[in-house]
């Protein structure tokens, strides 16, 4: 009998599932596949069999537990409140432990490495990301997944000429020259660092204009989403330790990336291996705030405090709820409060605003065909609003929304919420 340490931690959730099958209705992947292995109930049942010693860590099992967006729609709608996201992530961790890290590596590279045309670009990416890899690990494996999806006919964002980390200072004082109201650590996140550096500078500027001191520790690392959600808990813990250390001297840690904010907060949920880690992760989580949450709940800015950038005047905007905001962090009203506060901008809710865009990190690399189908439903919602722009607060979603608006030849441009704010 195997040790199954990670699965044992979530056994209570495994047992909570009563097989009612309601998750089939909410699961974006099941809605496309209509096969039981796609949905939480099936994945959970197989996990139960692992725990009973009746299921091995086969490649097929890897495929099945890999085929989940971790969008948590099943979780928030589960009558038994079973936290199947944790079950899936723990099952992936066991998979990695039992099959070795090659499990992820093989998966990640099967499709990527084949395409020679984009290989050059890929190498450039690999170089860009080397800094964040633990020394003992294979390097390229840990590239954040959305940047690996090359060679599948996908619209990939251009890498910035100069990355954010090469453009930022270590400390930014409040612009009014007064004593800072608080000291905030800015967490860049990979997508902002490499693809949207201007967004990062924009957020820093916004904060310092409101009397906040911002520090940007160069020692900060990747949040770890792509890594620990794939089941590599060991590296996940290393990243957690690095980030906790990098931000030990701030009142809050703020990021413009929904996935990063949720991932940083959730170290406590997915990763702890002992009491000490649990405590450290929990203390860290308390300081982490998503930018939208920080602006409304901590800075307590009111509608009149927001000014719309000139270029957006008269435009109609619609909002996409990132999974990592609405379901992982229960952040729904804050971004809407900002949007509604922007005078001169018309805000329209899209149908199914909370529907996952289909990205799901690594999911979209291995299952790009399903990603496209899910995204098409999202696009239908966007089209129904007749909005000029789609606004969200997750660079991961942005990359996928841009790809799919372009693919569907839609006129809508995609923005991060804070790009709209003066």
């Amino acid at each position: 009998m195997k040790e199954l340490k990670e699965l044992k931690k979530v056994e209570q959730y495994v047992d909570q599932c009563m097989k009612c099958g309601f998750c089939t209705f909410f699961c974006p992947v099941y809605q496309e596949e209509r096969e039981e292995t796609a949905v939480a109930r099936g994945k959970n049942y197989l996990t139960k069999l692992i725990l009973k010693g009746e299921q091995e860590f086969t490649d097929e099992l890897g495929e099945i537990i890999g085929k989940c967006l971790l969008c948590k729609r099943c979780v928030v709608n589960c009558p038994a409140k079973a936290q199947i996201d944790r079950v899936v992530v723990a099952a992936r961790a066991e998979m990695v432990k039992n099959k070795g890290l090659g499990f992820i590596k093989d998966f990640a590279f099967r499709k990527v490495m084949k395409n020679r045309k984009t290989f050059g670009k890929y190498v450039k990416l690999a170089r860009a990301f080397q800094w964040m890899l633990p020394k003992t690990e294979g390097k390229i494996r840990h590239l954040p997944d959305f940047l690996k999806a090359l060679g599948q006919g996908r619209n990939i964002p251009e890498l910035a000429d100069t990355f954010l980390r090469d453009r930022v200072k270590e400390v930014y004082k409040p612009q009014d020259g007064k004593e800072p109201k608080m000291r905030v650590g800015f967490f860049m996140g990979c997508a902002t660092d490499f693809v949207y550096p201007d967004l990062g500078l924009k957020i820093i500027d916004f904060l310092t204009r409101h009397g906040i001191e911002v520090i940007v520790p160069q020692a900060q690392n990747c949040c770890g989403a792509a890594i620990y959600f794939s089941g590599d808990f060991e590296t996940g813990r290393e990243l957690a330790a690095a980030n906790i250390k990098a931000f030990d001297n701030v009142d809050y840690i703020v990021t413009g990336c929904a996935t990063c904010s949720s991932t940083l907060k959730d170290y406590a949920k997915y990763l702890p291996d002992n009491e000490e880690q649990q405590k450290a992760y929990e203390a860290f989580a308390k300081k982490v705030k998503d930018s939208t949450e920080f602006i409304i709940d901590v800075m307590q800015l009111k509608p009149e405090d927001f000014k719309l950038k000139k270029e957006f005047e008269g435009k109609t905007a619609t909002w996409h709820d990132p999974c990592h905001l609405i379901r992982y962090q229960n952040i729904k009203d804050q971004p809407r409060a900002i949007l509604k506060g922007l005078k001169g901008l018309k805000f329209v809710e899209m149908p199914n605003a909370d529907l996952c865009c289909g990205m799901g990190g690594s999911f979209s690399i291995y299952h790009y065909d399903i990603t496209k189908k899910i995204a098409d439903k999202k696009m239908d919602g966007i089209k129904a609003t007749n909005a000029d722009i789609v606004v969200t607060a997750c660079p991961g979603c942005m990359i996928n929304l841009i790809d799919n608006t372009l693919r569907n030849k839609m006129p809508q441009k995609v923005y991060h919420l804070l790009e709209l704010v003066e």
Partner: protein
Amino acid sequence: MIKETIIAELQKIVGKDNVLTSPEALKAYSYDGTTSWIHEPDVVVFPTSTKEISEIMKLANREKIPVTPRGGGTNVSGGSIPIKGGIVLCTTKMNKILNIDKENLTATVEPGVVLMDLNIRLAKEGLFFPPDPQSFLGATLGGIIAENAGGPACVKYGVTKQYILGLEVVLPTGDIVNLGGRTLKNVVGYDLIHLFISSEGTLGVITKAELKLNPMPPARKTIMAVYDDLSKAGESVFRVLENGVIPGKIELLDNWVIRRIEEMMPLGLPQDAAAVLLFETDGIPEAVEKETEKILEITKKYGAVDVRAAKDMDEANKYWLARRAGFAAVFGKAPTVMAEDITVPRGKIPDFIKKCTDIAKKYNVEMCILGHAGDGNLHPSILSDIKNKDLYERSVKAMDEIFEGAVEFGGVLSGEHGIGLEKAKFFKRMTDPVVIKIMKDIKALFDPNNIMNPGKIWD
């Protein structure tokens, strides 16, 4: 084990992608919504047309391979468990709504359409399909029809059989037949369509259905009545009906269920109440107002200690959320839950509730009751543990007596779940042998090789 050549033939019929044989996939098709019935099929196939289903059935009939039809796999009687192995014929990829006819208030659907998806689509036309099994988020129309499912709306609207005008069915021999039609009245020969409704997948595969629809009621209102005595709640059910009001729904939650729901999600239900009845009136606004007043008056008169009409949709939704959470509340609480769907004539509800409570006491088992009280369909549930021999034996005995009690009161074993595997034992004991013989003969007529969902109902 099924032969490789058969798999190849199936792949030829439905395409490689629509045939699953991996051990993991087979495990994922070994269960349904029941607690403990598990059996793996040898292969899972996903047909996408009637013709494909016909070919699958011809092949299975020739080779005498069991075929278990399956939709969303949400049923709670074991009906879609492939208990004899063989082929699971899964209709989830046949999920097109083929037509909505507003003039005739009908819809034509494929068997894999999920009820919730249908009702979302119908709502756009101001229509709805009234039968409302509470598994509507996952249940498919094929399964709903095969199980003759019902739900809370039964008290006013009836069950599935009242809403099926026509069916296209593939017989176990592969023949395709059309039964019924598109009209409300139809007395052309034997009413064969109703053989298939509640056939539990033992006579053929439903491949298309013509549904009767209702216009969406423009107004609805929810009333919660609180009782300090469970039997009094039971009495209020028929008193309301007797006094001329037929609400859209009447649901019952007992104290145990209320407390457990509050534990799961605090909704502000009265935790010291012995029982709560939830009423929903629906129809034109004036009628809804009048009926609501009447329900408030009658329930007060017959012993409710507190009655309130939900002031808005939010409050109403809260109560119905609680009701929907009921089953989760029960099933999450014990390793083995014996939940039955015994149905008694409505006037007998108070007596039956008393009987259940007495039996639970006698055998010293934990029991709770929730259900569609409005139609006499209660779900007495015993919280047990199959691993605890003593407790489990007492639970089985208690449930046996509850069944016997229900039958004494003129009730039936199952109101809406069907017999399947779960109640086969009681079915044999409590059904006239002559009737069982007729049923078996009918089965043999349609399915001479006994390949269609074998092992169910009487085996």
